[in-house]
C-alpha cells in the first residue's frame, strides 16, 4: 500500500513519468481503442441486429398477444351481453308463457266450473223430473190401490164381491141412469 502511494509522489519528481506510473502506455491505449472499435463494429454488424430483431419480434408478439387478449375480452363482453340479452328475452318469454298459462288455466277452471255447474243443474233437473214422474206413478198406484180398497170395502158393504165384471156393470148402469 505504502509502495503504491509513494509511486505517484516519486513519479512527480521525475519528469514525464506520471503516465508511466499510472500505467498509461500510448501504444497500448491506441491498440485498445482500435480493438474496442473493431469489437463494436463486428458486434454491431453481425450480432446486435439478430438480438434487436428478436427483441422486436418479442415486442410484436407481446403486442399481438395484448391485442388478442383485448379482442378476447371484448368478444367475451359481447358474448356476456348477448347471453344477458338472451336471458332477458327468455325471462320475458317465460313470464309471458306463465301469464298465458295462468290465464288459460283460469279460463279452463272457469269453463270446467261452468260445465260442472251446468251438469249439476242438469242432474238436479233430471232428478226432479224423475222424482216428479215417480210421484205421479206413486200417486196413480195409490189411486188404483185406493180404488181397489174402495171396491173391496163397497163389496163388503153391499155383500157382493166386487169384481171387474160387476164393477163394469155397475158403471154401465150408472152411466145409463145418468143419460136418462
Amino acid at each position, binding site marked *: 500500500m*505504502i*509502495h503504491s502511494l509513494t509511486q505517484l509522489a516519486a513519479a512527480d519528481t521525475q519528469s514525464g513519468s506520471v503516465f508511466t506510473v499510472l*500505467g498509461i502506455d500510448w501504444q*497500448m491505449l491506441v491498440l485498445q481503442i482500435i480493438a*474496442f472499435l473493431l469489437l463494436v463494429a463486428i458486434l*454491431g454488424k*453481425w450480432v*446486435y441486429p439478430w438480438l434487436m430483431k428478436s*427483441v422486436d419480434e418479442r415486442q410484436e408478439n407481446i403486442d399481438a398477444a395484448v391485442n388478442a387478449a383485448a379482442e378476447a375480452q371484448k368478444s367475451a363482453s359481447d358474448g356476456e351481453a348477448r347471453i344477458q340479452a338472451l336471458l332477458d328475452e327468455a325471462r320475458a318469454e317465460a313470464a309471458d308463457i306463465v301469464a298465458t298459462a295462468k290465464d288459460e288455466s283460469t279460463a279452463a277452471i272457469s269453463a270446467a266450473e261452468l260445465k260442472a255447474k251446468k251438469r249439476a243443474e242438469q242432474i238436479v233437473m233430471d232428478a226432479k223430473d224423475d222424482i216428479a214422474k215417480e210421484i205421479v206413478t206413486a200417486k196413480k198406484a195409490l189411486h188404483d190401490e185406493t180404488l181397489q180398497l174402495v171396491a173391496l170395502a163397497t163389496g163388503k158393504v153391499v155383500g157382493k164381491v166386487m169384481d171387474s165384471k160387476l164393477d163394469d156393470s155397475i158403471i154401465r148402469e150408472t152411466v145409463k141412469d145418468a143419460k136418462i
Partner: protein
Amino acid sequence: MNTFAAFDLKVSIGAESLFKIGGFSVTNALLCGILGSIIAIWVLVYTALSIKRGRYNRFVGLVQWVFEGLLKQINDIIPDKKLASKIAPLALTAFFVVMFNYWLSVLPGLESIKINGVPILRSLTADLNFTLALALITVVTVQIYAVKYLGVFGNIGRYIRNPLKNPVGAFEGALEIIGEFSRGLALALRLFGNAFAGEILLIVIGLLASYAASVVLPFFMIFELFIGFIQAYVFFVLILIFTSLAVSHESGHGEAPA
C-alpha cells in the same frame, strides 16, 4: 501500518508487463481483457445464434432479457430512434465488455498466480489504458454526433460565444469546455477507481481473513459482481446521457452529470 508491510503487499497502479512481443509489452490486464472480451463475444454470439436457430434456454432468455432492458433504456434516454440505433452498438458493447471484464477481477488467484513476480490476473477495467480508451471513444463519438446534429458551427457555438454580446453565455461555454474534459476524465477514473479498489479490497480481505478467507471472500466477491454490474450500467447510461445532451443542446442547457 506494519501489518500490511508484514504481508509484503505490493500493489501497482498500472498494469504490469508479463512479456514482450516484438517490442510490444503484453500486460496482465491485456491478457485478462482478451479473455473478458472473448467471453463477452461468446455470450452475445451464442445468444444471437440460439435466437436465430430458435433454441431458447434460460441463459439465452436471461441475456435477451438484459439486452431488451438495455434497449428500452436507450430508447427512453434518446428519443430520436435513428440516433438511438446508431449509438446502441457502442453503449451495448461498452456495457457487456466492462461487465464481463470487471467480473474477471473476482477470479481466484488474483494476486497469487504470478510469472516472474507479476500477477497474471488483473481486470482490464483496473487498467487506466482501457478506461481512458473507452472515455476517449465516448467523448469523440459524442462530438461526432453533436456535429452531425448541430453542425460544425452549431457545435462550436456550444463552447465559444461572443463575450461582448453574451458574457454569461461565454462563461457557460468555457465551463462547457472544462465539462467535456472533466466528463471524459471522470468516466475513465470512476471505472478505473472502482475496479482497482475492488481488486485491492479482495486482496486485503484475503490477507486479513487468512484461513477464514474462503468463508469471508465469497461475500466480497458477490459484492464485487454487483458493483461490476452497476459500474457497467453507469458507463452505459452516461454514454447515452452525454450523447443525448450533446445533440439536444440547441433547445436548452441541461445539467450534465460528472
